[in-house]
């Protein structure tokens, strides 16, 4: 049997690095979708090392782990690729009604940062990305042109974009095209 090698959607694409805009493909990581009610969220907290955010469109972080509110009973959990979290979380949730799905390979991510990042995102995303409307730590599912994305503001001028695996090249090219005027 031949060796299987993992191919990432942005393999071979070099980061864009300019004075006002940098775009970087993100390395593989663990992604889990947890769905459940308050009891499931409470049961997950000790295994995660943090409480799941209950405020709409807000995130929580501890160390290398992050939990993003996607809906009133849905969270996207991000962790390093070698994190044993999936097993510990499944064990902690045993007996509580929930759904825990590993979507690490379903989607892929990129980071976009710089003084022009919000402007470039707004070339395809209709949300108000001003700090008052979309502060640091805010996250949401939304759209970028023809693709659905998860957008997370990780810093004053930095965002993480997650999209379905087959959409990621489109998202990258769309943002790169929109960013051309910023060098």
């Amino acid at each position: 049997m031949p060796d299987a090698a993992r191919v990432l959607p942005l393999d071979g694409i070099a980061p864009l690095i300019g004075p006002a805009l940098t775009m970087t493909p993100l390395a593989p990581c663990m992604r889990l979708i947890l769905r459940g009610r308050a009891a499931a969220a409470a049961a997950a907290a000790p295994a995660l090392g943090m409480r799941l955010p209950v405020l709409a469109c807000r995130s929580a972080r501890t160390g290398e782990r992050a939990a993003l509110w996607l809906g009133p009973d849905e969270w996207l959990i991000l962790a390093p690729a070698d994190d044993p979290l999936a097993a510990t979380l499944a064990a902690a949730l045993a007996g509580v009604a929930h759904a825990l799905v590993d979507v690490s390979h379903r989607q892929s991510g990129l980071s976009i940062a710089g003084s022009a990042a919000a402007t470039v995102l707004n070339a395809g995303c209709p949300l108000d990305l001003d700090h008052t409307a979309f502060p640091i730590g805010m996250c949401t599912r939304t759209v970028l042109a023809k693709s659905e994305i998860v957008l997370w503001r990780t810093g004053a001028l930095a965002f993480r974009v997650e999209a379905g695996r087959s959409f990621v090249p489109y998202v990258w090219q769309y943002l790169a095209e929109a960013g051309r005027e910023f060098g």
Partner: protein
Amino acid sequence: MLLIDCPYCGKRPEIEFSYGGEAHVARPADPQALSDDAWAAYLYLRSNPKGRHAERWRHTHGCARFFNAVRDTVSDFFVTTYKVGETPPAEAWPRAAE
């Protein structure tokens, strides 16, 4: 762009949402007991008012939740939005004035 007030996420651009038809259409408790006409009416006949209309929406590209809205079909103005299972404010309810 038209902003729709998702009961979970707040005001969000219209293109994140999808329309889900008239709200509060209750499935008959005993479909077997219905005449063909009554069943067809449940399946296909909707109120289609000129004015306030209670309808289902889904924040598809957001929290992905269904919710209800009262919208004016003449002006496209959203009078109110509310979670499934909740009752809208009486002044927004389209049938209260009848």
